[in-house]
C-alpha cells in the first residue's frame, strides 16, 4: 500500500501565495471583499434609522391666535416634523399626501386658540400617510404628550384651572391608506420590486458572460449577428419571466395578505414593464462588463444590497440622512416601490406616478445605451 504524501508546509505556502496572487488579479472579488463590509457598516451603522425624524409635513393653519403657533412650534422642536408646506384647503393637503410629497398634514381649525381658552377641547386633525407604518409610528406616538406639555406654559397661573385631566385638546389621527397599520400592506407590494430586481438583474447578468465562459461567444460573433439583436433577444424572454413573478406576487398579495388594491392593476402592469426593462438592461450591461459568471453575480449583489436597504423597502426612506436618500433615488427599485404602494394602497393614477415613472425609464435607457456600447463585436 502506498503511503499518503506527507503534509508539506512548502506546498501549503505555495498554495497560499498562489491564492493571494489570484485574488490580487481578480479586482472585483477584492473590491467586493472590502466593499461589502464597508457598505454594510455604513448602511446599518449610519443610514438605517428605525426612528425617522424630520418627516415632511404640510400645515393647514386656519387659527389666528397664538396657541396654534405654539403647537406647531412644539412639533417642529420635537424634530419629528418638518413643516415644508402651508396649504389652504384639505384637498390640497390630500394631494400632497397622495403624491408622497409630505408624510403628514396637520390641520389646526379656525378658532383653535379661542376654543382652547374656553376649555372646549378643540380638535387637531393629523392626517398621516401610513403606507409604511414604521415611518410614521414614532412621530404619531410622541404627538399626544408633545402637545400637552407644549400647552402647559400657556395654561398656567389663573388659567391652570382650564387644564383638564384628559388634555386640553382633542387629537385626532387619521392613518390614511393603511388605517389598521398592517405592515404586510407595505411589505408585500414592496417585495414585488425587490424580487424583480434580484432575479432580473441576475439572470440577464449571467446571459452574456455564460456565452463567453463556455466559448460560444466566439461562435456567435463569427455569425452575422448584430449587438442589438443579441441584447434585445436576451432581454425579451425574461420580460415574460418578470410578468409571471408579478402575477404570482399580486395573487399572493390579494388572496394571502388581503392587501387592498385601490388603483388600476392595468396601470401597475404597465409600470412593471418599464421597471422590468430597467433591471434587465442593467443586468445585460453588467454582463457586457463582467469577465465571467461569478463576476456578474458579484455585480448583481453589489447593486441589490444597497437597493434593498436604501430604497425604502426595509427601512423608512425618510429615516435616512440626505446623502443616503440621494443614492437611493438612483435605484429603479426606490421609484417602483413608491409607485406600487401608490397604486395599490393610495389608488394613485397616471398623474401621480408620472414623476417616478420617468426616472425608471431614464435609468433603463441609459443602461441599454451603455450595454450596446460595451458589447464588443470582436474578441479584441
Amino acid at each position: 500500500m502506498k503511503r499518503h504524501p506527507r503534509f508539506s508546509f512548502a506546498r501549503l505556502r505555495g498554495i497560499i501565495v498562489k491564492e493571494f496572487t489570484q485574488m490580487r488579479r481578480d479586482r472585483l472579488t477584492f473590491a467586493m471583499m472590502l466593499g461589502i463590509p464597508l457598505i454594510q457598516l455604513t448602511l446599518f451603522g449610519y443610514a438605517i434609522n428605525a426612528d425617522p425624524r424630520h418627516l415632511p409635513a404640510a400645515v393647514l393653519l386656519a387659527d389666528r391666535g397664538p396657541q396654534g403657533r405654539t403647537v406647531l412650534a412644539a412639533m417642529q422642536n420635537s424634530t419629528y416634523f418638518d413643516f415644508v408646506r402651508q396649504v389652504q384647503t384639505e384637498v390640497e393637503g390630500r394631494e400632497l399626501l397622495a403624491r408622497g410629497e409630505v408624510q403628514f398634514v396637520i390641520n389646526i381649525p379656525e378658532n383653535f386658540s379661542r376654543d382652547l381658552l374656553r376649555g372646549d377641547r378643540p380638535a387637531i386633525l393629523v392626517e398621516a400617510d401610513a403606507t409604511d407604518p414604521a415611518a410614521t409610528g414614532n412621530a404619531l406616538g410622541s404627538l399626544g404628550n408633545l402637545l400637552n406639555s407644549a400647552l402647559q406654559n400657556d395654561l398656567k397661573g389663573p388659567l391652570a384651572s382650564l387644564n383638564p385631566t384628559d388634555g386640553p385638546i382633542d387629537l385626532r389621527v387619521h392613518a390614511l391608506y393603511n388605517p389598521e397599520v398592517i405592515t404586510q400592506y407595505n411589505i408585500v407590494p414592496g417585495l414585488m420590486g425587490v424580487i424583480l430586481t434580484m432575479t432580473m438583474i441576475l439572470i440577464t447578468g449571467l446571459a452574456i458572460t455564460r456565452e463567453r465562459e463556455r466559448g460560444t461567444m466566439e461562435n456567435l460573433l463569427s455569425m452575422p449577428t448584430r449587438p442589438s439583436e443579441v441584447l434585445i433577444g436576451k432581454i425579451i424572454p425574461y420580460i415574460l419571466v418578470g410578468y409571471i413573478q408579478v402575477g404570482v406576487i399580486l395573487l399572493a398579495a390579494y388572496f394571502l395578505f388581503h392587501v387592498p388594491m385601490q388603483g388600476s392593476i392595468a396601470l401597475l402592469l404597465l409600470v412593471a414593464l418599464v421597471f422590468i426593462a430597467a433591471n434587465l438592461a442593467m443586468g445585460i450591461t453588467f454582463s457586457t462588463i463582467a469577465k465571467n459568471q461569478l463576476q456578474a453575480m458579484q455585480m448583481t449583489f453589489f447593486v441589490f444590497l444597497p437597493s434593498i436597504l436604501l430604497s425604502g423597502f426595509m427601512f423608512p426612506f425618510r429615516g435616512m440622512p440626505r446623502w443616503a436618500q440621494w443614492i437611493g433615488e438612483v435605484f429603479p427599485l426606490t421609484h417602483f416601490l413608491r409607485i406600487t404602494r401608490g397604486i395599490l394602497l393610495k389608488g394613485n393614477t397616471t398623474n401621480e406616478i408620472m414623476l417616478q415613472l420617468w426616472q425608471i425609464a431614464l435609468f433603463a435607457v441609459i443602461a441599454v445605451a451603455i450595454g450596446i456600447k460595451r458589447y464588443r463585436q470582436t474578441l479584441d
Partner: protein
Amino acid sequence: MKNGERAIDVHGMTKRYGDRAVVDHVDLTVRVGEIYGFLGPNGSGKTTFLRMLCGLLRADDGNGQVLGHDVISESEAIKREVGYMTQRFSFWEDLSIEENLDFVARMYGMKKRREVVRQSIARLGLAGREAQLAGQLSGGWKQRLALAACLIHRPRLLLLDEPTAGVDPKARRDFWEQIHQLAADGLTFLITTHYMDEAERCHRLAYISYGKLLADGTVDEVIAQVGLTTWAVSGPDLSRLADQLRHQPGVQQAVAFGNALHVSSDDAAELERAIAPFQRAPYDWRQIPSGLEDAFISLMQGSTDNFAP
C-alpha cells in the same frame, strides 16, 4: 469563383497585443478548391490569424481579399460566406443537435430553414439523434455536429481550427474523406493542425512560428525550403548514442523513430564531420530523405521565441 482563383489573398497581416506581434506580417494565398494546411507550435498565432480572416479580431495591419471581399473593411460580407469552426467546441451544449443547427440556420437567415436543417442532419448521419443534447455527444460526434453547423449556410471557404483535436483515428479518417469530397465540389479549406499525417493530406502547407510565416508550399517544397540533411542510424543502445550526438556541434536533431535514430542538420558538411566518429560498428548509418516532421522540428528550433523574457 472558379478553381485556381484566389479564395484568400492577404498580405502583411499583423496583430499586436501591446508591443508584441502575435501575427507578424503574414502573407497567404489560398486557391479555390484547395485544402491548405496551417501548421505551427502552440501559441504561434494560427488561431489569431484565422480570427482576423473572419472578422473576429481587428487586424492592426495588412490588406487583401477573402472571397473577393476586403479583409479589413468587409468583414460582415466575409462572415456570410465563411464557415469558422473554433478550436474548442463552441455550440450550445444545452441545446439539442437539431436546435443548434436550427439556430445557426436562423442566424444566417436561411430560406426553407426546416428543410436545410433536415438535410444537414441526414447528410451527416445524425438522423435519429436530432433531439440529443450537444453536450452529451462524444468528441467525434461533437466535431461532426460542428462541421455540419459550419456548412449549413453553404459557405465557400471553411476555416477549421484544429478540427481533429481529441478525435479518434477512425473519426479523423472519415473527417478527412469528407473534407476532400467537399474540396472536390469547389469548397476551399484552411485547416490548422498539429498532426503530420494530416499535414501530408493537404494540398499545400504553411508553417508559422511566433507569428512569422517560415515556409510554405507543397509538402516537398516545404521540406526542400528547410534544406535538411538526415541520416538514419540503427544499432544497440540508441538513447545513449542520441545523448552523445546531441552534444556534438553540427547536430541539430537526434530523434528516435522506431528502431532507428534520425540525425539531421541544415549543414550537410558539418553534420558529416560530427557523425564521423560514430560511423563504426555496431552502428549502421545511411542517408535518407528528410521527412516533414524533421523539417518542422528544425523550423521550430530555428525560430526565435518572442514570448521568452
